[in-house]
């Protein structure tokens, strides 16, 4: 029994290893798909930009300033900061911008209601009068061309949502930020773009992202009962026959967590939300007639990605137990070790990170690769703990709580000016 279980774990880990290798090889030598990146001239549609802001006084001014300078027709751009029950100075900062730029910003100050980003966005829909809407978290700093880059894929009537690339801004602050910079690089530059290349399931990430309102209405709007509205929306779109597009060149700076406790809370929330989607949509995905077989396979593997951490820990435990029981595990332990090493973590495996650093033209940061093992170990433990808490909460019938990611920025962002 234990041996069979161990074999199943090794097989699962190997499947994910192969998946990561395929993505990396595709990015390095495969044909790259950027079908919408060259749409630079068009009759641009009206767009609403929603900025999710919950106690964001440290960062909200930066994103408002950046959005007021983007290269998009001002008469077609509605900026809606969604001030979700903030108790700091977020409201005052937003209102000062409203006064300084009359007619450009329509604030939504939310004072009550259910906590969570999805719930806030759901309430903010009353302010959306356009077919296309973009969603940014308040710590993001969009570049001048970003709005056009994110809107361009919506000229394709099959596209329901769009995801841009997130680039960490506060890279050099701490060891954690440097590790997260490499992780993000692997996750977007390799993992997301490979899934775009292969017509698989690029993931809507909830920020630096766009949504077609009619598609959102068709799938029933925002789901406020989830901890990861992005994953939830990705799968509901997919099941309804809408495509999610990843735009690797639509880059936007974000602030990554600088403290380990913040990172731990962030990844545990992601894991719980993702696992919610796994439970909710796996069966529907298997049955759906709106998806291709490749989308079905990739979609299922993506749903299971956060379960691989507890599976991996189980594999290690079983390997030790079986070894001391004298079971004939043979080379399986070596296979598990290798596969575990290369698949552990949140999407971004080691060889994906190395490939991403090369594609990004990064120089010395690749030398930090051995240290990412630290981040992956923390992730594995946190994700496993999140899975256990989720399991325990479901038995006790407890509701899960949404935790906002704390910001560390203390001064306005000054970026290198565009050429």
């Amino acid at each position: 029994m234990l041996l069979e279980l161990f074999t199943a774990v090794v097989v699962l880990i190997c499947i994910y290893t192969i998946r990561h290798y395929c993505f990396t090889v595709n990015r390095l030598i495969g044909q790259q798909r950027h079908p919408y990146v060259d749409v630079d001239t068009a009759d641009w549609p009206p767009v609403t930009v929603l900025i999710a802001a919950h106690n964001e006084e440290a960062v909200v001014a930066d994103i408002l300033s950046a959005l007021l300078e983007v290269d998009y027709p001002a008469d077609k751009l509605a900026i809606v900061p969604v001030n979700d029950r903030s108790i700091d100075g977020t409201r005052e900062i937003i209102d000062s911008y409203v006064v300084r730029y009359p007619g450009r910003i329509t604030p939504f100050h939310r004072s009550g209601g259910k906590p969570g980003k999805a719930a806030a966005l759901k309430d903010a829909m009353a302010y959306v009068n356009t077919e296309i809407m973009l969603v940014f978290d308040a710590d993001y700093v969009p570049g001048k061309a970003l709005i056009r880059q994110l809107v361009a894929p919506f000229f394709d009537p099959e596209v329901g949502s769009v995801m841009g690339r997130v680039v960490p801004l506060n890279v050099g602050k701490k060891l954690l930020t440097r590790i997260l910079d490499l992780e993000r690089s692997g996750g977007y530059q390799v993992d997301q773009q490979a899934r775009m290349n292969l017509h698989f399931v690029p993931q809507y990430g909830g920020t630096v992202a766009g949504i077609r309102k009619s598609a959102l209405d068709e799938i029933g709007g925002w789901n406020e009962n989830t901890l990861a509205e992005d994953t939830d929306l990705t799968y509901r779109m997919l099941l309804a026959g809408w495509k999610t597009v990843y735009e690797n060149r639509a880059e936007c700076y974000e602030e990554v967590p600088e403290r380990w406790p913040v990172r731990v809370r962030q990844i545990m929330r992601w894991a719980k939300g993702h696992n919610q989607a796994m439970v909710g949509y796996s069966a529907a995905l298997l049955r759906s007639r709106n998806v291709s077989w490749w989308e079905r396979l990739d979609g299922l593997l993506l749903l299971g990605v956060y379960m691989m951490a507890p599976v991996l820990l189980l594999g290690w435990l079983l390997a030790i137990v079986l070894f001391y029981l004298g079971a004939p595990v043979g080379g399986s332990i070596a296979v598990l070790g290798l596969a575990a090493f290369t698949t552990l973590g949140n999407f971004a495996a080691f060889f994906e990170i190395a490939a991403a650093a090369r594609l990004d033209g990064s120089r010395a940061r690749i030398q930090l690769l051995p240290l990412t093992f630290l981040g992956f170990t923390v992730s594995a433990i946190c994700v496993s703990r999140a899975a256990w808490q989720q399991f325990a909460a479901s038995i006790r019938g407890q509701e899960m709580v949404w935790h906002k990611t704390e910001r560390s920025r203390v001064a306005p962002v000054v970026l290198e000016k565009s050429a």
Partner: protein
Amino acid sequence: MISVLAPLALATSTGALLMVPLAPALRELMHKRDAGPLITRKDDGRISSFASSLRTRCIPLQALLDQCAQQGESQFVDSPFGQVLLVGKSGVWTAPQHTTTPVVCAGCVELPPEYHSIGDFYSRGNVRGGTRSIFRALLSDDEILLDDETQILRWIHAESALHVGRNCRLYGRASSAKSLTLSSGCSFERVYAPVIYSSKEAATLSVREEYAAYARLAQSGLGRTRIRGAMHIPDQHRGDVVATGSVDVEEGASVFGSVKANGEVILKGRAEVHGSVVSTKRVHISSGCFVKGPIIAEREVIIASGVQIGLPGTPTTVSAPAIHLAPGAVLHGTVWAQVEGRVGD
């Protein structure tokens, strides 16, 4: 004593050995040689950004250029971006046949055949090139006329009309603030103008303007039809169309919405799409067709003669790895061939 030191020495040396692969990581962590945020796209995406940049660089040279123009002379001057040839004399080119430095001309110039300019070339007046010329980059504040078999290596921009002769090769960007006329046999990558003609004759075609009623119809949120397999549109269709296979829009049919095929899109004669056309493979637009919005294909776009893409005042984009234009087509906006665009004979 020896028995205590031996394991300690073993542990220390083993630990040191294990630290060796971490040494570069720790060094980078401490020295932060590559710890800045990844540089994101700097280019603002505008096709004329190189032209604007060159014009800005030439501003400090304007006074000297005016002097050269008054004296009708040419001279080399030093500038912050190296040596520059200032040409004050308008008309037939009398300076060297091959120039390696940037050239700035005060007025109109008429260049000889097989002229080669390896540096940037900027003229405040018209530029008329000779046959088989080669320019790295060419900018005119007025009109540019490229003779047959000319090559542009990086970019070309005219503030007025840009005429491109037969069998020219336009690598990189080619743009005009007014109009761009391509001749047969031309190849191109990224071109932009308010109006692009794929032959001189195309300029004589009657161009349709926006029909307000159609525009309202196409933008009125008519919903989406999703079809498993191929789809034929025989006459009028309202709303967006998405097919998992190919889409054929029959002769004279109209779509008030956008079309997406996970296969080929074929627009037969005089068909109209008042939205975008997107294909994961090939888009074939037959003679007399009209498409208002962007055309995006992941393999190839073929545009026949008598086709109109976009509208005056509402330019759009045609994007595909390969784009084939027949002579006699009219396009408004950007045509971007990632591998090669070509005007047929």
